[in-house]
């Protein structure tokens, strides 16, 4: 193997990429390269200066940069090669090798050869146009994450009178952040009848600052030629259509949008990786390998997480699996393969396909429900009519990712090729 060749290239040095690289190292790989497009390691965590990270994984309450720092510190002396300010613009896949096309000011255009790739590029924010809010197109309309970068990284204020559309976590966090910086946040408006954010954020970021949350409402018009001047908010019916006569007008100079995150998989798709429309991320097997051999995925490029702690665990699993692949313990496609089918109550699962023989003691399946379940209910896995596993939950919401750990012995009981997952009332 030439010196230029790597066992593993990890694309992205956010929480997913860092945990994946460290785990791959721990599981026996020595020639690992991590490519990061930003000039700093840590990804989006760098602008998340609020606390609440690490409660599950470290049993501590950390800020975003502190959480990232725990992993960055482990890189010292690990032998993992890290290159920042480098963009991957193409990924080629053949049977034995993956070729990563990367470019940077310092190293120019490079074709880097490796055995395995871990995709850890994260996600992007949906925009005003993706949800087609009509009106004018003045300055003052920001994705919440872009505004967060301006405020927390650049130290710049983006506005004085603010309305927030979408009650995703970034929107909620920014409601508080803007208020603390002296802006007036007039309202948070959510299209759905429930919030997509974590409950603790609704309490700590809206209720504590007396910011009203309007559920089943949306922004239906934006006015202003130079800078935003006024927005129209309307209630929506069950089909999400605005109800005439419910108009409320807000004189604001700023609109922050927190209307969803989309895993960024253009690079993956071009490499042939099959994308699941439900997650907008790759279809993966139990070991987080995608439809393309030797290409693994973890973190927000795979599905959007609400807690970084689970990103870490998932990415460690991807790192371990990539190491096994490189070291020759690659899963054979033989054996019992089960597809996990979502019923209408569940919006997606990760993984989507399980090669039963590859599951060691148990398999953790991540999933999201598509409505709020306030009464005690069950996440049920069924093979035909047979219940394979059942997990009791007191409360479930679309904004809070669920997971269920199914022991191997139970998976072995599945006779067919599909495992249905659904929510059933107690």
């Amino acid at each position, binding site marked *: 193997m030439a010196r230029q060749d790597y066992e593993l290239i990890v694309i992205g040095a956010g929480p997913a990429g860092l945990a994946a690289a460290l785990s791959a190292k721990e599981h026996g790989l020595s020639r690992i390269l991590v490519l990061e*497009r930003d000039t700093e390691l840590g990804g989006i965590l760098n602008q998340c200066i609020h606390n609440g990270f690490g409660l599950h994984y470290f049993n501590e309450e950390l800020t975003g940069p502190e959480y990232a720092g725990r992993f960055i510190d482990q890189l010292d002396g690990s032998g993992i090669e890290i290159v920042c*300010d480098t*963009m991957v*613009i193409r990924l080629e896949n053949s049977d034995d090798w993956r070729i990563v*096309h990367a*470019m*940077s*000011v*310092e*190293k*120019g*255009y*490079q074709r880097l050869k490796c055995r395995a790739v871990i995709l850890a590029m994260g996600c*992007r*924010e949906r*925009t*005003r*146009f*993706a949800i*087609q809010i*009509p*009106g*004018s*197109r*003045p*300055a*003052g309309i920001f*994705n919440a*994450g*872009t505004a967060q*970068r*301006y*405020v927390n990284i*650049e*130290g*710049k*204020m*983006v*506005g*004085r009178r603010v309305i927030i559309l979408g009650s995703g976590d970034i929107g909620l966090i920014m409601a508080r952040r803007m208020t603390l*910086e*002296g802006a007036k946040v007039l309202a948070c408006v959510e299209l759905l009848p429930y919030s997509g954010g974590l409950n603790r954020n609704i309490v700590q970021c809206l209720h504590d600052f007396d910011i009203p949350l309007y559920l089943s409402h949306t922004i*239906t*018009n934006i*006015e202003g*030629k*130079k*800078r935003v001047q006024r927005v129209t908010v309307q209630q929506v019916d069950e089909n999400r259509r*605005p109800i005439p006569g419910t108009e409320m007008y807000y004189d604001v*100079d700023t609109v922050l949008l927190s209307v969803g995150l989309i895993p960024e998989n*253009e690079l993956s*798709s071009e490499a042939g990786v099959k994308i699941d429309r439900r997650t907008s991320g790759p279809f993966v097997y139990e070991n987080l390998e995608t439809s393309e051999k030797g290409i693994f995925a973890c973190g927000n490029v795979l599905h959007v997480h609400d807690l970084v702690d689970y990103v870490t665990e998932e990415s460690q699993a991807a790192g371990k699996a990539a190491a096994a692949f490189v070291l020759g313990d690659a899963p054979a496609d033989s054996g019992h393969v089960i597809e996990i089918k979502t019923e209408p109550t569940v919006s997606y699962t990760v993984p989507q396909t399980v090669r039963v023989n590859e599951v060691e003691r148990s398999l953790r399946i991540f999933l999201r429900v598509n409505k709020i379940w306030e009464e005690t209910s069950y996440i049920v896995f069924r093979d035909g009519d047979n219940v394979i596993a059942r997990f009791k939950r007191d409360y479930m919401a679309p904004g809070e990712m669920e997971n269920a750990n199914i022991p191997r012995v139970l998976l072995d009981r599945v006779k067919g090729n599909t495992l249905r997952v659904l929510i059933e009332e107690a």
Partner: protein
Amino acid sequence: MFDVAIIGAGVSGSALAYELSRFHLDVVVLEKENDVALGASRANTAIVHGGYDPSPDTLMGRFNVDGARMCMELVDRLDVEFRKTGSLIVAFDEEDMKEVRVLYDRGLRNGVPSMEILDGKEVCRREPNLSKEIIGALWVPESGVINPWEFTLALMEVAVREGVELRLCEKVISLKKRDEGYLVETERGMYTARYVVNATGVHSDEVHNMVAEQAFNIHPTRGQYYLLDRSIGEVVKSVIFQCPSPLGKGVLVSPTIHYNTLVGPDSEVIEDCENTSTTREALDDIARQAKRSVPSLQLGSNIRNFAGVRANSDYGDFYIKMSAPHFLDIAAIKSPGLTCAPRIATYAIELLREAGLDFKEKEAWDGTRRVVRFKEIPEEEREVFIREHPLYGRVICRCETITEGEIVEAIHRPITPVSLDGIKRRAGTGMGRCQSGFCGPRVQEILARETGKAPEDILQDKEGSHILIGDTKEGRV
């Protein structure tokens, strides 16, 4: 005193400035906005039209075919993004087929080359995503899609490099006849010029009325659009028009130069000619109409809605004439104004010459321009190119793969941009699916750095469109 003052830096004014820069003339262009191409020239259907549509006894009909040919020559000389896609005017029933034959005949009279009438099967073979209800179409090969703001900018950049003075943020408020020409008063100052050209688009009736009797009225007509993400693939290969009907021209579905899909426009006469807002009703209506041509159209992949205001008028044609001594109107320029712009410019020069302006050609005049687009550099040459030009190694706009080198180069061209949208029009940043969510702050930083400004002074778009309002509490320290 200037020889010529052109009012308006849209595509008409810019094409004329370009042509005038060939001659020993002192030319000034007065533009009310902070950049070139901020009116209809940046928000339109982005098509070089074939020329089958306008009546042969109009200037539009007389200029279209020549204009299209000149556009196709200019895009090479100016390195402007253009692709000859051809156009299909599709018919859903026998009534439409009659119209197709009318257009074909009109095209012949206008001199449109190589047209064909296709049957439904052939249309379906060429464009598999079109409705199976289509029974035939007119095929117009000599037409295509262009980057309209880049075209306008390129014309003006060369004009400025070759000696034309461009004054931005100079809104003309009055024109007074003086012995030798005109005193042009703007909101900020005075200019004198022997000849004045009115190329002010939707404002061209107002400017005309400053020196001449009312002759036409602009009826500002708004058209709204969707721009769809490339990720849905190539929806159509050519520009798909519906047959013009009593209800209007119908909406089109078109590929763009960047392989996105453009859908629109509607047509709505509005009062405020600067009102480029979009509306729910119009967007829904456009969606309905477009799906008639392409039933599977995925409007959920929308990455941008926009609207442009056309300078339609009650005159029924371009209004191009010497309306007062030493005063030339290039007024009421509506579709196909972009296509006709180069031909309008040469016609304007004929009119100015007849009116006594002296044209002496410069010995040395360079009418060309070259731009580096990293994406277009073949993969095997990229390594060497970045080694020689390191800033092209840093990708700033990840959706469109635009590098810092391209942004810096765009900033230092003859017309300095002052806004993120100014960089967008020059380098293509923020054109993609994230709509500058990621690259916006970085482009802002680069523009501030390269022009010696504070980030707060970088605008989103027109004057007053401030992105930032100051420092945070911590940032202030």
